[in-house]
């Protein structure tokens, strides 16, 4: 009996020492479950997953809701979601790996590794170091237009094109969030390691971390079942459609593409908490991780009105560093406009959590819903057995609320269609059409791009020229351009300028369908002739102007011209990538002598396999640009492939 007691005692003592020093109690996990269920029920998020880890291992992993609102499949810990700028921490990790290997030095100028690296003011770009690229102090503000190139050349082209930009702040001094800086860092990784960036991450991070469902390569998304996410709406989110034609490789190291799961990210976080070790693999030394988590610069954090404490946020290398409610927290969010993530590592309690959502919660209306920051902070609190807080939730009401009402008679003047002409970005706000229409409660604004509804607002007017667009997201200002007689000529919203579509102008065009699956607008007086391999169209007023459309593969000469992307002559323009209407087109112009004298010829082609046609337009040089404006631009904007889209 005594022997049994002794054995039991020793067993219990052993169990005590073998137990995790920082265990999450079962009741805390139940509380967490309950909390997240409530979040799902009361929030607007279609689906999300959460993973909580500590230095011992996985603590919690679960999904809530659905992968897509219009589908039944549940959102789980294995659901592949975008992580956005959390990728920056991975880029920084890759840099630190190369530093540890002696292939890179953080404080060496980039030009040492990329001798041709320069901006227009070379004296400034010569000062940019590798560290500055990944701590957001490089001074590189510009975000050049994408080339819709998914090859590894995209990063090289992006870096080379910096020759025409200027650095306006002294490198190394001021914090300025820079996707461009991380992209260049990604290119440095590829150049120094000899591996393309995507491949490097696969080999040196995702492989050793057993992140089997994680990738930065969009070609793999289909196989992984990666989500597309949702756009914000008024009462309900709208499932987003994949727009493969608009995918571009320039900003992969900054987070434009990376997809992962809660499961995989749990491994990543465990490695970080375990001083760089995961299983038998050591990804980084403790010192390197400490370096990444040491403050390099700072910027104002959440103020008290916003639910913060007014303390500045610091930025290390790919990570933000804050003191939140007495804990040292290393964190980074991720936002793609359709999906989002938030990762927090509680260094005080040795715990970490990530939330992945199929809606962009970074720009959620904080006055209506808890922010992703608040949610993950509370996840950590609960996992630590602590009560939840309101950190990150505003303490004031929405300052944009007002009691102005637009009179009914005026509303009609706002109704109509508008097109984007300036501003925006190339993540979400590009190529937009906006329709302002009557809704149940007044006017509504709907932003679309092809079949994608990018945003949908109720318009709450504060003045006749200013409306607040309200939906589940952050309220947006709609500044209307009004004339004294009440006409609405255009508007500004979210950094984008729109003008009212000139319907009268469209009356000068006719719809043509040269093929059973193809339709577009042409000037009314132009004649169209169908051909076996496409069509031809002519301007009756000018025989020198010819539009030719031909089926892909039908003209070897053209296919050769397209293939000659990098070997152009002085009489040829570079290849430009443009978004017109629902598609991305590449176009190149060339000068040639024709029967009508010197002519300009522009070739348009689309790389997508389900777009079967190329176009070429030839005219006298003095008319060419006008024809592009008057004929080609409306044609491309109105182009429809029936049954051949996306």
């Amino acid at each position: 009996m005594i022997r049994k007691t002794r054995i039991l005692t020793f067993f219990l003592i052993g169990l005590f020492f073998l137990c995790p020093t920082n265990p999450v109690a079962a009741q805390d996990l139940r509380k967490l479950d309950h909390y997240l269920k409530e979040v799902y029920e009361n929030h607007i998020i279609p689906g999300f997953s959460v993973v909580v880890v500590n230095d011992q291992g996985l603590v919690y992993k679960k999904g809530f809701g659905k992968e897509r609102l219009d589908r039944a499949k549940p959102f789980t810990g294995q659901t592949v979601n975008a992580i956005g700028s959390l990728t920056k921490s991975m880029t920084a990790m890759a840099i630190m790996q190369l530093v540890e290997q002696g292939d890179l030095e953080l404080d060496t100028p980039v030009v040492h590794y990329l001798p041709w690296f320069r901006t227009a003011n070379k004296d400034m770009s010569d000062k940019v170091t590798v560290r500055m690229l990944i701590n957001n102090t490089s001074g590189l503000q510009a975000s050049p237009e994408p080339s819709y190139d998914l090859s590894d050349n995209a990063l090289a082209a992006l870096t080379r094109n910096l020759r025409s930009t200027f650095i306006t702040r002294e490198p190394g001094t001021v914090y300025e969030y820079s996707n461009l800086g991380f992209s260049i860092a990604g290119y440095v990784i590829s150049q120094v390691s000899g591996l393309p960036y995507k491949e490097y991450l696969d080999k040196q991070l995702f492989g050793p971390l057993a992140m089997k469902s994680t990738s930065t390569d969009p070609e793999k998304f289909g196989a992984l079942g990666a989500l597309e996410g949702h756009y914000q709406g008024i009462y309900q989110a709208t499932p987003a459609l994949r727009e493969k034609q608009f995918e571009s490789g320039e900003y992969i190291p900054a987070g434009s593409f990376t997809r992962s799961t809660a499961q995989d990210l749990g491994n990543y976080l465990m490695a970080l908490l375990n001083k760089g070790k995961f299983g038998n693999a050591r990804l980084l030394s403790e010192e390197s991780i400490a370096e990444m988590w040491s403050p390099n610069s700072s910027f104002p954090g959440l103020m008290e009105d916003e639910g913060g404490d007014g303390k500045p946020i610091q930025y290390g290398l790919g990570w933000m560093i804050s003191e939140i409610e007495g804990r040292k927290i290393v964190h980074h969010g991720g936002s793609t406009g359709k999906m989002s993530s938030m990762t927090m590592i509680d260094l005080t309690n040795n715990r970490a959590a990530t939330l992945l959502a199929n809606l962009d919660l970074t720009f959620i209306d904080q006055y209506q819903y808890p922010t992703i920051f608040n949610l993950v902070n509370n996840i950590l609190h609960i996992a630590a057995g602590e009560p939840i807080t309101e950190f990150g939730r505003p303490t004031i009401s929405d300052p944009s609320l007002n009691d102005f009402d637009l009179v009914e008679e005026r509303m009609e003047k706002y109704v109509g269609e508008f097109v984007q002409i300036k501003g925006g970005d190339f993540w979400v706000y590009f190529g937009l059409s906006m329709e302002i229409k009557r809704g149940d409660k007044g006017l509504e604004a709907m932003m679309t791009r092809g079949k994608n509804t990018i945003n949908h607002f109720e318009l709450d007017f504060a003045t006749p020229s200013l409306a607040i667009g309200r939906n589940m997201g952050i309220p947006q200002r709609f500044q209307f351009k009004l004339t004294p007689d009440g006409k609405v000529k255009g508007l500004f919203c979210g950094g984008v300028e729109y003008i009212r579509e000139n319907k009268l102008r469209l009356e000068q065009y006719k719809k043509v369908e040269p093929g059973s699956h193809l339709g577009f607008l042409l000037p009314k007086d132009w004649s169209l002739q169908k051909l076996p391999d496409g069509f031809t169209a002519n301007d009756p007023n000018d025989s020198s102007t010819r539009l030719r459309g031909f089926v892909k593969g039908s003209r070897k000469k053209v296919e050769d011209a397209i293939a000659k992307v990098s070997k152009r002559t002085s009489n040829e323009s570079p290849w430009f990538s443009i978004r017109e209407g629902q598609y991305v087109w590449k176009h190149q112009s060339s000068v040639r002598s024709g029967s009508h004298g010197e002519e300009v010829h522009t070739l348009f082609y689309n790389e997508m396999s389900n777009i079967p046609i190329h176009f070429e337009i030839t005219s006298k040089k003095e008319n060419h640009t006008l024809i592009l404006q008057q004929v080609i631009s409306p044609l491309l904007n109105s182009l429809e492939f029936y049954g051949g889209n996306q």
Partner: protein
Amino acid sequence: MKSLLLLNSKYLVKRKRAFVLVGLSLILTILLLSIALSLLRIIEQPFDITFNNQKASEILLLFDVRSDDKDKLVQWFSNQEEVWGVSEPSPFIMVNAPLIHKGGELDLSVQLTEHHSGHLVQDEIRMLKGDNSGHPNHGEIWLPTHFEGNYGLKLGDTLGLNLNGELRELKISAFVVDPHYLSAIFNPTRAWVAPGELPFLAPLSELNNTMIGVRLKDGVDLDTFWKHFNASFDYSGKSLQYPLFKRAFTSFYTLLGAVLLIFSLMGLLISLLIIKHTVSSHVFSDYRQIGVLKGVGFTPGNMVLLYLMQLGILALIALPLGLMVSWFVVRMVVNWMVEPLGIPNFTYNLSGPIALSFGIVFLLVLLVSFFSARKAGLVKPVEAIRNTFQKKGNPGGRTSRTFSSLWLPLSLVLGGRLLSSKKKNLVFMGLHMAGIVFVVIFCVNISNSFDKIHNDRTSWGFDNADVVINRKSSIILPLKHGELMEMLGTYKDEIRSISPFNYSNLFILSNENRAIKEIQGKVYSDALSKTGLGNIEGNHPVAPNELSLCIGTAEEFNKRPGDSVAVFIEGQKKVFTISGIYQDVGSLGQGFRLQEKAMLGLNPLFEPRFYGLELHQNVDRDAFRSQLEEQFGETIQTELSIEERKAMVSMVMNVRMAVLTISLFFVLVLVLIIYNHQNSYIQQHKISFVKLKSLGFTSKNLRMVLLWKTVLNLALGVSIGIPLSLWWSPKIMNMLTADIGLVRFPFIPYPTGMVMAMVALFVLGGTAAWFAGSAIRKINFRIISDV
């Protein structure tokens, strides 16, 4: 008459030094006057000639083809009988990033426009330098001529353009006369590329802009026509019109002409004073000879004529010389003005300004000489023959006795007595000196006023901000207004005051409620009275229905404080009462100011976005800016205070150069006057000097006497010139800068500079007097026998 002429020729030779001075000052005066009048007459001609020769359009329409129908616009204008022609549409793109040339940046925006054959008929672009192939070739760019001079660009150079995030390079193949962009002031300016070139430079998504030109028939009123267009056509784009182009070209030359005119009038005054003094002193020194001549039968009229003829002949020699030089100078200036315009055979008629200049100066010379020479006619022959020196003139008197003090150096005493012995001489020379001192002090203080903009920014209409913060909104964690203010509030030791504001636009409405003019203004969160800004009339707006207007806008619409003005702002019509009128050179006299509560009544969500920080005196501005940027990171952008900005720095430098040149010119005149006066004085008072030598004074002593005389003369001039300059300079500048929105020039005198300038004048004047005094050495007893 023959004897008069012979006498004249003798006197002209005998007094050549004195007459050389008079001649020089006449030459310089007529030079300035003639140049000023010529410029003011000619200024507009080159522009109008170029504009007409090249069939330039009075109206340029620049629009986005997606919002305005090009064909409808062309059709509408073509159907108007007032229209001479409508140009072919020219596609263009705006390049707003700095241009890159040899690794450096040209801070200019450019409207890159396709050239086409239509530009041989209307809005002709004329080649000035380069290969005249009719239009730029592929890969080439044509630039307005001022690029060559202002930026040192050359044919064959490569210009880098940041287009769509990529560097495009074009070869400069010509410098051209662009009839709309003749002035370097314009930014953005315009450059030309080959027809069909734009698709080689930018993607299709950027190629949405087109330009059309409308040329009107002679005699058509542009304003009326434009109003007719606005009433008939719903146009969304931009327009640039003839008055703007013309003003951009002529403003610099108008200002130059006005300044030269002012200085020429001052120079004329000085010359007339010199003439008066010269004639008077000649009459005095010829006293005995006049008596003799009268004794032998010359009439009083002959005597007057004698001196009149001297100055008349001198004027007839000097003035044409001056006019000839001015003709060359005007030609040079006009060539400089016209060369970039490439006007073939530009002829201009200078006969008017030349004749006018000659007439004015010659007449004045004769008048002044006449009145000065009248004394010669009053001389009594017997008295004159008996007495070698005139009795008139006060050898003693109170002024003279001032210099009898035993404690003063003897040379000073004697110098003073010599100076004060002839009151009129004293006064005249004092006025000469005063005139020159006036100009020099004017230049010193004006230069200082521009240099010290930062001390008196608000008088220029600028916010009194050492640092301006722009609170950015397009970032992940933007700062709210209250948050930023709270954080800035912790810098009590550095920041003296914070003035939050934002920009806004409004349309001034006509009586028919149509928008006449759009102006940009500022809305201030704090009471304007706390910002340090002032008004030239009335008060700051306080009540929600009040606004203040900038002087240019007020004058354009004939508004005064107390008047009302109907505007369209924040999508609403509102009638404001004008509380005051202010000046603001930064907006060239256009704009408005509102109090935040007025704006909140129109837009309850209005918030300031800019913050003008006035720092304490001991705070290092640059260091503090860096500190703010490091703390706030991307949430703010700091801007240079107004006086640090490139355009302002450049303007201040230009003003400094101009005033330095003018002041050097007048200093030269001073030196010449003193030198010549000294010489003639020595000649006129030879006997006195001989007597003094006989009393034991050495040449050096006597030179010291003359030096002191000059110094005292200068001191007199300073005592008159400085107060006059301080009084008149602001008034002159008010007149000159009214056109650019500055009706009350912020005049800041510069005591140290004035002292330094005076010291320089004294040193140079004294040196001139000393060297002129070397003539004393040649005076000896033998001269008495000559006399």
